[in-house]
C-alpha cells in the first residue's frame, strides 16, 4: 500500500512546440554561427599547454608549501594543519631546536594523493608557515612519490611573496 506513492507514474514531460521561425531552420543556424564567428575575434582564454603554461593569480590554491626564511622554516611543528586537515594528508613530527622558536618540524610530510587543496592548513597556521602555492602540476608514477617531504615543500619567503601579500590583504 505504502509503495503506491513511490510507484506513481511520473508526469509526462512535453517540450513546447517550435515556433514558426525555428521551424524555418536557417535563421537558427545563422544565430549559432554569429556566436561562433563572434568568438573568433575575442581574446583567447585557453593556452597551448604544455608548450605554454598558465600562471595562476595569487588567489589560486595550488599545492601547499612550507615557507622558509634564509633556510629556516617558519613552521614550529604545532600540528594544527595536521589536525585540521580533513583528508589527513599532513604528518608532522616535532623536535627541539636551539632557536628561539623552540620547536621545529623534524619531519613534515604531505601526502598529495590525499590533499584536497581546501587551504584549511593555510588558514589555521599561526605562523604563516604553510601556504597554498600556485603550483598545479602534480603527476606521480607511484604512491611513494606523492608523499612530499620537507625537501619538496620548502619555498623561500621571496618566492612566495605574491601569496603572502594576498593573504595579508585579505585577512
Amino acid at each position, binding site marked *: 500500500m505504502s509503495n503506491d506513492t513511490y510507484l506513481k507514474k511520473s508526469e509526462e514531460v512535453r517540450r513546447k512546440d517550435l515556433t514558426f521561425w525555428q521551424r524555418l531552420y536557417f535563421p537558427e543556424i545563422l544565430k549559432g554561427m554569429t556566436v561562433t564567428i563572434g568568438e573568433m575575434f575575442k581574446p583567447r582564454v585557453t593556452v597551448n599547454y604544455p608548450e605554454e603554461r598558465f600562471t595562476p593569480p595569487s588567489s589560486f590554491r595550488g599545492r601547499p608549501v612550507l615557507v622558509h626564511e634564509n633556510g629556516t622554516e617558519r613552521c*614550529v*611543528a*604545532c*600540528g*594544527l594543519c*595536521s*589536525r585540521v586537515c580533513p583528508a*589527513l594528508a599532513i*604528518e608532522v613530527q*616535532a*623536535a*627541539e631546536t636551539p632557536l628561539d*622558536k*623552540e*620547536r621545529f618540524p623534524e619531519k613534515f*610530510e604531505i*601526502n598529495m594523493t590525499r590533499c584536497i587543496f581546501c587551504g584549511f592548513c593555510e588558514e589555521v597556521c*599561526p*605562523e604563516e608557515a604553510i601556504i597554498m602555492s600556485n603550483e598545479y602540476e602534480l603527476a606521480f608514477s607511484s*604512491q611513494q612519490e606523492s*608523499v612530499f617531504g620537507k625537501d619538496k615543500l620548502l619555498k623561500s619567503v621571496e618566492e612566495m611573496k605574491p601569496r603572502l601579500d594576498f593573504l595579508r590583504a585579505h585577512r
Partner: protein
Amino acid sequence: MPNVTITIDGQPYQVDGSKTIIEAARAHGISIPHFCWHEKLSPAGNCRICLVEVEKMPKLAIACMTQVTDGMVVNTKNERVINAREAVMEFILINHPLDCPICDEAGECKLQDYAYKYSQGFSRFVEDKVHKPKRVEVGPRVMLDAERCIMCSRCVRFCDEVAGEHQLQFVQRGDRVQLTTFPGKELDNPYSMNVVDICPVGALTNKDFRFRSRVWEMSFTDSVCSGCARGCNIEIGVRNNEILRLTPRKNDDVNSVWMCDHGRVETFKHVNAEDRIKAPKVRKEGTLAPVGWDEAFAKVASELRSFNASQVAVLGSAFATNEDNYLMARFAREVIGTRNIDFARHQHGQDDAVLIRADKTPNAAGAEAAGVKPGDSGLSFDQIIAAVKEGKIKALYCLEDDIAAIPGVREALEKLEFFAVHATNHNATTELADVVFAASAFAEKSGTWTNFRHRVQRIRPAVATLEQDRTMDDFAMSRWDKFAAHNDKWGKGPRRDARPSWKIVAGLAGAMGTKYKFSSADEVFGEMSHKLEPFRSLSYLKVGTKGTPLHTAPVTA
C-alpha cells in the same frame, strides 16, 4: 561532621559540613572552575577563579576556602560571578605568552579550556608582556617555562605535602613572581614529574616526552604500571603504535593520582626498543635464528620429552600476568609432570613512604596465587638453581624474566642441556637460551596483575602485535588509527610477531598433545576463577578499570 543543607544555583543539597563549597559542589557533579585547588593538596586560595556568590556575604567568596554552613545559599553562575571570572581570566592572561602552538600542554591545558569557557574571548592588553626565563631545566626530568606559570603553587604544595621534599618556591613579587629552586638545588625527588600532571598550564613539562607528540594525536589506554608491586594505575599514550608516555590514573585504593618518576619514564622504553625479540628464535649453530612458531613449538616439545620429569624445572615470572603464570603452572603439572616450579623474586632497596615498593615486580603476589609455587617435595627457585649447578636439573623452561642477571644464576644456566625462555627483549638470559619465544610486552596484551595488597588489576593492549588488529581487538584508537589506510605511511609503527605468554604455553601444550582451548586471556581468567580459591568468582567485569581485591587480600589496607 553532620550533614548540612546548602543551596547551589537554586537546588538544595545535603552535604558534609566539614567540606568547602568547591568540594561539596563537586560531590554533586557541579564543577566550579579552579586552578590552584587540587583535590589531593591543601587549598591555597590564590588563583581566585573559583569565586562564587554566597548570599549575605558582602563580597564574592572563593569556593575552595569557604566552608559550607547550614542554610548557605551559593550562586555559581549568575552575572556577578561570571563577570568576576572573566576579570580573573583577563588578569591571568595578561602576562601569559601566546605559546600554545609550541606548548606541550596545549590540548590538555586548564588555562586553555577555561579561556574558552570563562573568558570574554578577546584581549584588551596592548602593552608588552613580562618576560621570564624559558627552557629552564628545573630538574633532571622536568622543564620549566617561567613565563607560562600562573603562580597557582600546586607544584610547590605537591613537593611539600606529597613528595615530602621542599624543593620549589616562589621568589620576587607582583608580576615578577617566579618559580624556582634553591640555588644549586634541583627538583629531583623521585615523584618530581607529578608536578607536570598537576600544572594547570604548560609551565612544567615532561622532559622525556617534550615535543614528541601533540596530545590529541595519541590514543590512551587504561593500564597498570609494571615498575613495582604497587601497581599504580596508568594511562598509556600511544601514537604510530609506539608508546610515548605514561601518566597516572586516579585510583584511591592504590596510587591516589600519583606515580613515581621511575615508573613513568623507565618502564615502557623496552616496548619500543630495537632489541625487541621480533619473532620466535631457535639457536642454530650457536646463534639465535628467527623461525616460525610451529618450528619453535616442535623444537621445545621434542627437547622437553627427551628428559625425565624430575630433570625438568619450570619458572613462572613475577613480570608475567596471572593468566600466564596460571597456564604455565598447569602446563608444568599436567604436561611435563614436574613439581619443580617457582619464580624469581626481585627485591631491591626499601619501600618508601609514598608509593615505591622494594619488590620491583608487578605481580609477585599474583604468580604465587596463580599456582606458581613448588609442589610437594618440589624445588624452590634457589634449589632449582642449585640443582642446575649440580646437574640434577637438565632442562629449564622460563617465563619472561631476566634470571641470568641475578648474581650466581648465569653460571648455573650455562650448565643446562636445554633452556627455553619467553622474552620481550634480548637480555643476559636470552644469550644463554636454546629457544626464545617472542613474548608480548605488558602493553601488548590483555591480562591481570596482582599488587602487593593482593588487588587484581587489568592491563590492556595499547600496542598492536602481528596477531592483533586495533579495530577488531577493541584497542583505544586515535584519529590516525581510525582513518589510516593500508598505504598510509603514518599509523604504521612496527608490529612484532610476539604473543602473550599464556598463548605460547597453550601452543606448546598443543605440540605436546594436550589441548588448552582458550581463545583469550579472559577465558583463562574465567577458568582461574573456578579452580583457584583466591580468584573465586572473579571476572574481568568485576576487576573493571580500578581492580578488585583477591579473596586472600589482607583485611586492612
